[in-house]
Each structure stands twice: as C-alpha cells, then as structure tokens.
C-alpha cells in the first residue's frame, strides 16, 4: 500500500529533477553566450582596434591608415576603415552562432568566424579566425586589441 502511494511521488521527483537539470543546462549555456557577448560588446559597446586609425593633421578628414570595429550590445558593429585616405564607416550585424568548450562561432556581417579572446600584459585581445579543414588551406587570423576607454 505504502509502495503504491510513494510511486507517484518518486515519479514527480524524477520529472522535477530532469526539469531542473534541463533548466540549469539551458541557463548555463545562455550565461556563457551572454558572457561572451558582454566581453565583446560590453554594456554599451567596445572598440576593437585592428589597426590604429591615424588621421592627417590639418583641415579635412584625411586618414593615413587604420581599421576599427565597434561592437555594440544591440548586435550591430560599426566598422571604420581607412580606404584611399578616407575613413569609410559601415554598420553591420553580429551574432554569436555557437559556443562550446573549444570554439565560439560568431557571424559578423554575414561571414562566420571563430572568436577567441585572451589577455596579456599588453591588454585585452580578440581574434576573428577563418580556418580551413585541410592542411594546405590557410588559417586567416584578424587580431584586434581592445581600445582603452
């Protein structure tokens, strides 16, 4: 009799445990994605320098060199690039595609990259990588440094 009564309770406990595990797994995954997004864009936006933008002195807005990505929390990225002595700016979208223990994939302006962060004594760094599956293919890295705010 007791056994019959306790059976539904044990089932409920089992279901609740499964639900808790599922919720915690999902929330952990979201947290990881959230942490990465925060690292990349901060709460308002982060400037990532690929090549420091150098402007010419004097009138006009002539530039010498440089490329900068401003990742914003609203999933837009403002890309500023010096082309033919003129600073060109375009706004694109970005999103985290997948996160696992080894790789984080990010979509920037429709192109998929592997996203890597690291820190050293020189500052905070970020890398956008396209990797080939074959040995003779090239691995292309675009390394950025977080601009001091």
């Amino acid at each position, binding site marked *: 009799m007791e056994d019959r009564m306790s059976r539904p309770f044990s089932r409920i406990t089992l279901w609740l445990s499964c639900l808790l595990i599922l919720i915690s797994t999902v929330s952990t995954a979201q947290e990881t994605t959230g942490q990465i997004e925060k690292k990349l864009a901060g709460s308002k936006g982060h400037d990532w320098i690929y090549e420091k933008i150098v402007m010419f002195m004097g009138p006009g807005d002539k530039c010498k060199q440089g490329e900068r990505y401003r990742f914003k929390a609203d999933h837009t990225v403002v890309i500023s690039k010096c082309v033919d002595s003129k600073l060109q700016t375009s706004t694109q979208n970005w999103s985290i595609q997948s996160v696992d*223990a*080894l790789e984080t994939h990010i979509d920037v302006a429709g192109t998929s990259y592997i996203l*890597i962060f*690291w820190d*050293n004594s020189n500052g905070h*760094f970020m*890398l956008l990588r396209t*990797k*080939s*599956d*074959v*040995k003779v*293919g090239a*691995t292309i890295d675009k390394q950025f440094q977080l601009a001091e705010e």
Partner: protein
Amino acid sequence: MDEESKRRWDVALGIIAPILTVIGLLLGVWQFNRGEENKTRLEYQLLAQKDEIDFKRKLWLERLSTYRSIAEQTGKIATTDKTDKSFKDLVHIFDASYWGMMIFVEDPQVEKAMVDFHVEVVDYQNGRSNGDKLKLRADELATACRKSVAPGTAP
C-alpha cells in the same frame, strides 16, 4: 535411288566431309585459344585484386601504427607545459608527422582533427589557448583516429 545419283551423293559427301572436318578442327582450336585467354585474364584479375587487398591491408596496418604514434605525441604535448624544455622538441616531432607520414594515411576527419590540434598548439604557444583546450583537442584527434580504424574498416 539409281546408281547415278548414288554416285553423285558419294562424291558430294567426299568433298563436304573433309571441309567440315577442317572447319571443326579450326573451331576447336579457336575455342581452346579463347578459353585459355579467358583463363589468363581471370588469373590476372585475381592477382590484381589480391595485390589491391594486400596493399590496402598494409596501408591499414601502417595507418594503425601511425595513429598510435600520433596519439602518443599529442598526449605528451597536452601533458607538457609550454615552459618545459621538452615542449618545443615534442611540437617539432608532431610537426614532422603532421607534414609527413600522416598525409599518407589520414582520412578527411582525421586531417581536420590534425589541423585543429596544430592550430591549438600554435595558440597555446602564443598565449591564446590553455592546457585544458589542448587536452580536449588531443581527445578529439584520438577519437577521430579510433573511428578511422574501427572494426570493419580493415580490408
């Protein structure tokens, strides 16, 4: 049947019989030659098949041995700190296998895992990765190697 027609039949048969005999002989020789040709062709095909199976078997055994060696190398790299003196030498040995024997035996999945491990080692050396990731990559590579030589893949 009168005597005249009987004689004509005898003459006709006397001419036709040797011709038929010669044709029969020629057919026999042709058939024998054809049979011999087929036999030789089959023997060649069997030999070629045997050679192919032998080659595949040797390649499979070579693959098994190379994978075992690469698993040992990646294991050593993953468990050695980059500040250790032997780390550079271990990476050098891995690089030699990467551009050498592995190309001869690896399948596309193992090649991808090799590329991933190689890139991870470079990242680790440049401070962009850590020992844990390197271990995970080593595990990924060993799993790909194991799948590549799983039972049923041997010829």
